[in-house]
């Protein structure tokens, strides 16, 4: 919005308010075409327009003294004082612009992960800001360009043009970095590709821990992260007599790396598998298309939209070599040397959605809205073979008189081993949403709504190998069955070795139907108070879940008051009660081989799927309370103080599972704008949250109940042989986050200064309790003694101080000097010890984690030219 529009806006509103005659319908300016980013900024200036914010003396309006406030009392910022220049003598076009070009210098721990997380800081020349704008006051046409560049991976440019009330177009390009680690030491060659190979110093499947540790120590440091490159183009304009159409296309390329896994079965508790922290490639494209057509008629309003999103993964798998020598638990000669692993990464996805919205005005100042939408998501990539191994997998127990559990890789390392060649995955969605609202008087209004949404997962896949007549899939690249006899992951109704293997053979096509009814009303009491009450009933029918029906009643009461002096108080409270139908702790039988013909129950029966007393948190009975109070208090024309207090409480009715969550927080903000030359603000926010979880370990060994492998393993109940009370444990999570900030700007005339300080800190604690030592994974006396009652605290803190000074040499030329000093500290028990070595027995890690503490200084000088 141009300055002239800002000036005219209050007058227009005022005039319309005073006028008893309705104005004709003006052009609808909704942004249905938008697919680009809402915000264009970077670490130099997250807002994206600070360099041009020279507040004008005239304030927001020629009509009103001082600054205007929002309806709730917050001050609007002073608008920009733009001095526009005619393009040529007598021209209707004016222009203004700014070029900010200079040098940035970094000093200190400039490679610290948290410093670089979302910015690609580098010492060198940078385009701080460039903007050029053209306006035609007579025709309403405009052209705007702005951009900024810190580096090749951190830049944005946007062009907008159009004519107010007629058409507009936008084109943009931006690169955004996202650093995951600056402290990674992967041992593999081929980082960023789909094939990770070990260095010459290591033997795949045959290296010693010492050799692996040496290779890790010699590995060079790498950054792990990605860059998002987004481009887009959108158009919008009137097509024919009030019919407005829009078309937009955007594309996002994500390229880089990410820390990833690489399992070769467990390497804990005496199991000789291998755990690899690998690095996977990121090479994604997402193309979004948005088309819309809308018409604002005298009675009806219509919007039709099509959204298409097309995701492509150009590196859809990851092959990796594992250095570890696998060893079966029986100590028999290892006939399978499994060292090649493969991940199938995200598949391509096509998404289409068609939506129609209709609305019209009704009597009693009412409105009727109805929307219907249909969408579909489809994936149909060619499937990859179950394994990539050669030779055999498994264990041959014949030397000790046992069965031969080996499986030829040739039966599984080909796409011929698949029941279908392509995924043929599809999820369809449907939506119907109708709503009416009436305001028969200025003091009373009510609304009602009905929303129906369905997600229908049509994907059906059966893991069946036509080459062997077996079901299931080889687990962990064949490593699991090569360490534990028979745990290959397959079911064979004709082979006694595998006819009791209860393995997953079908995908679970999760879906749901949700119906939401809402009824609400609001009353205005006098001039200063209003009360709103809304009741909603949510009826959810999940598919293939523990409950066939989940319903929730919710009531919300909101009160807004201006009756306490100049303060605006907004308070709300809501209470919800979730219940549902019968809870079936195991609805998944049909997806396991136990449901197939020829399955033979083990002599001791099938172990319970899970403990019957567990209620999953998204389905369990729950009582929820939420309360919030927001107070905004204006002091005079220049100061606003606002405070927010809120609390949420959830209680779950279950013996096992999530027990409760609660969060409590408050914010306090002070804003001061005594004049366009001076602004200041301060902010403090604190939030604490807690979560309680109850669980029970299954009795998988002699020292914690020995239920597994006995007839008692079929008992799913808490307190039974498989889930004894002695194995219960409880987790207590708590977290506290604190943020604080202060800003100050002052304009001395030819010199302008700005200062800001920001603090961010968090404390996380995971505590636990357990009934007996039987609940622990490691049950030795030493482990129990070391367990204590919680993990060490996780702490994160950062302090950032920014200082800037702008000098105007002339009306046109100036200089900006700025500096940032950032410090941080970080402690996370997940990373403890990794700064010493990344190699622990049969486990090799890659990321040493963020720096324990860092300090970095950034200095910059930018030459300013007003265009």
């Amino acid at each position: 919005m141009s300055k002239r529009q800002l000036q005219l806006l209050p007058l227009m509103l005022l005039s319309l308010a005073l006028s008893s005659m309705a104005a004709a319908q003006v052009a609808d300016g909704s942004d249905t075409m938008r697919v680009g980013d809402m915000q264009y900024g970077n670490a130099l200036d997250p807002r994206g327009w600070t360099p041009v914010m020279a507040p004008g003396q005239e304030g927001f309006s020629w009509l009103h003294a001082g600054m205007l406030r929002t309806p709730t009392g917050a001050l609007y910022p002073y608008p920009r004082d733009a001095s526009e220049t005619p393009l040529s003598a007598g021209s209707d076009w004016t222009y203004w612009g700014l070029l900010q070009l200079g040098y940035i210098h970094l000093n200190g721990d400039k490679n610290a992960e948290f410093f670089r997380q979302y910015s690609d800081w580098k010492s060198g020349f940078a385009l701080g800001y460039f903007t050029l704008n053209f306006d035609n006051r007579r025709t309403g046409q405009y052209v705007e360009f702005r951009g900024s560049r810190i580096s090749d991976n951190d830049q944005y440019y946007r062009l907008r043009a159009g004519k107010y009330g007629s058409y507009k177009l936008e084109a943009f390009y931006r690169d955004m970095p996202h650093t995951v680690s600056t402290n990674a030491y992967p041992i593999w060659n081929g980082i960023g590709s789909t094939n990770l190979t070990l260095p010459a110093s290591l033997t795949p499947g045959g290296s010693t821990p010492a050799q692996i540790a040496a290779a890790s120590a010699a590995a060079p440091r790498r950054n792990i992260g990605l860059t998002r490159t987004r481009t887009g183009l959108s158009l919008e304009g009137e097509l024919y007599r009030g019919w407005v159409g829009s078309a937009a296309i955007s594309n996002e390329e994500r390229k880089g790396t990410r820390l990833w896994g690489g399992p070769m079965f467990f390497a804990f508790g005496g199991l000789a598998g291998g755990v690899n922290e690998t690095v996977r490639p990121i090479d994604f494209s997402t193309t979004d298309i948005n088309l819309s057509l809308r018409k604002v008629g005298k009675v009806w309003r219509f919007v039709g939209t099509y959204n298409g999103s097309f995701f492509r993964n150009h590196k859809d798998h990851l092959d990796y070599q594992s250095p570890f020598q696998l060893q079966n638990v029986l100590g028999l000669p290892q006939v399978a040397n499994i060292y090649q692993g493969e991940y199938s990464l995200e598949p391509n996805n096509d998404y289409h959605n068609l939506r129609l919205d209709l609305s019209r005005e009704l009597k009693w100042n009412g409105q009727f809205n109805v929307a219907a939408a249909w969408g579909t998501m489809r994936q149909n990539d060619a499937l990859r073979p179950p394994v990539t191994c050669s030779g055999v997998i498994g264990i041959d127990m014949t030397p000790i008189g046992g069965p031969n559990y080996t499986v030829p890789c040739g039966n599984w390392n080909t796409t011929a081993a698949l029941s279908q060649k392509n995924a043929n995955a599809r999820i369809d969605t449907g939506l119907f949403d109708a709503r009416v609202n009436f305001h028969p008087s200025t003091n009373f209004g009510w609304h009602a709504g009905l929303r129906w949404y369905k997600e229908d997962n049509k994907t059906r896949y059966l893991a069946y190998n036509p080459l062997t007549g077996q079901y299931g899939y080889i687990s962990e690249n064949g490593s699991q069955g090569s360490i534990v006899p028979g745990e290959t992951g397959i079911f064979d109704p004709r082979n006694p070795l595998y006819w009791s293997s209860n393995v997953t053979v079908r995908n679970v096509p999760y879906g749901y139907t949700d119906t939401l009814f809402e009824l609400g009303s609001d009353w205005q009491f006098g001039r200063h108070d209003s009360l709103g009450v809304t009741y909603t009933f949510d009826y959810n029918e999940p598919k293939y879940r523990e409950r066939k029906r989940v319903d929730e009643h919710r009531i919300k009461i909101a009160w807004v008051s201006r009756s306490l002096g100049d303060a605006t108080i907004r308070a709300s409270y809501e209470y919800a009660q979730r219940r549902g139908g019968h809870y079936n702790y195991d609805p998944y039988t049909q997806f396991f081989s136990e449901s197939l013909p020829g399955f033979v129950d083990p002599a001791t029966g099938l172990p319970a799927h899970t403990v019957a007393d567990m209620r999953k948190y998204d389905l369990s009975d729950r009582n929820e309370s939420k309360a919030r109070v927001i107070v905004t208090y204006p002091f005079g024309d220049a100061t606003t103080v606002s405070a927010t207090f809120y609390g949420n409480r959830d209680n779950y009715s279950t013996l096992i599972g999530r027990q409760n969550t609660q969060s409590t927080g408050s914010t306090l903000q002070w804003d001061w704008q005594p004049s366009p030359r001076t602004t200041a603000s301060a902010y403090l926010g604190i939030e604490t949250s807690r979560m309680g979880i109850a669980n029970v370990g299954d009795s998988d060994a002699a020292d914690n109940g020995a239920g597994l492998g006995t007839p008692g393993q079929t008992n799913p109940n808490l307190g039974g042989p498989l889930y004894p009370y002695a194995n219960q444990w409880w987790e207590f999570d708590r977290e506290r986050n604190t943020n604080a900030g202060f800003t100050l700007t002052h304009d001395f005339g030819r010199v302008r200064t700005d200062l800001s300080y920001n603090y961010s800190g968090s404390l996380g604690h995971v505590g636990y309790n357990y009934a007996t030592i039987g609940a622990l994974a490691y049950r030795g006396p030493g482990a129990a003694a070391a367990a204590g009652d919680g993990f060490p605290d996780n702490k994160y803190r950062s302090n950032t101080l920014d200082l800037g000074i702008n000098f105007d040499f002339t009306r046109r030329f100036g200089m900006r000097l700025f500096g940032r000093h950032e410090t941080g500290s970080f402690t996370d028990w997940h990373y403890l010890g990794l700064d010493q070595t990344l190699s622990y027995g049969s486990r090799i890690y890659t990321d040493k984690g963020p720096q324990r503490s860092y300090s970095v200084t950034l200095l910059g000088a930018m030459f300013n030219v007003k265009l």
Partner: protein
Amino acid sequence: MTRFRPFALLITGGLLAGFVMVDVRAQDAPASAATAAAHPVPMLDLRKQAPVQGNPQAGADKAAVCGACHGPQGIAIAPNFPNLAGQSPTYLYVQLKAFKEGQRSDPVMTGQAAPLSDEDMRDLAAYYASLPAKPAGKADASSRGGQLYLSGDPVKGIPPCQGCHGPVGQGPQPRWSSAPQPAWHTFPRLEGQSSIYVGKVLGDYKSGTRGGSTNGKVMQGVVESLDDTDIQALSTYINTL
């Protein structure tokens, strides 16, 4: 009485202005701009202007010269001069102040206002505000001017004049609102002003010669969307209010 001697010039100047209005307007703009460039005049900020009070009787004593153009009872002797009778006292005061301080320029009035004290300006304003306004005419609300005045033209971005000047030109009549209010009392009453005078004023706003105050800035924004036909239609309509 010495201090009111300059008012004698008002008679002659006012008459001259009536005959050569167009030329003066054309010549005044660059001269004003040049003056402003040499000696920048701070903008007259009326957004916090308090309602003005003065002594009408004292004002009557000081208004003898003014009446030469604006009429003995504040009804102008010729259509190129504004009627002052019944006008908002605050509006009258800030206009005199603008002439005196230079935000508004006129070959006659600039000189007349120069020696006035603040008290003089308040008294004169109070005096003319106390006089009965010109009787209302028969306005045609269906005319183009009536439509512009009462409803504006949203397509062209023209707000209705009545929003600030009242439905019949007798000044704004705001409804109660908790929102911040403009300084309503600084807005002029338009009823009965001649079409020639209104046309001149709107032309001044459009040419930029009357943008020295915050209210002037508002009017510049409004008039920018008016073409010559609109100005003519509005002037004619306001003349009949």
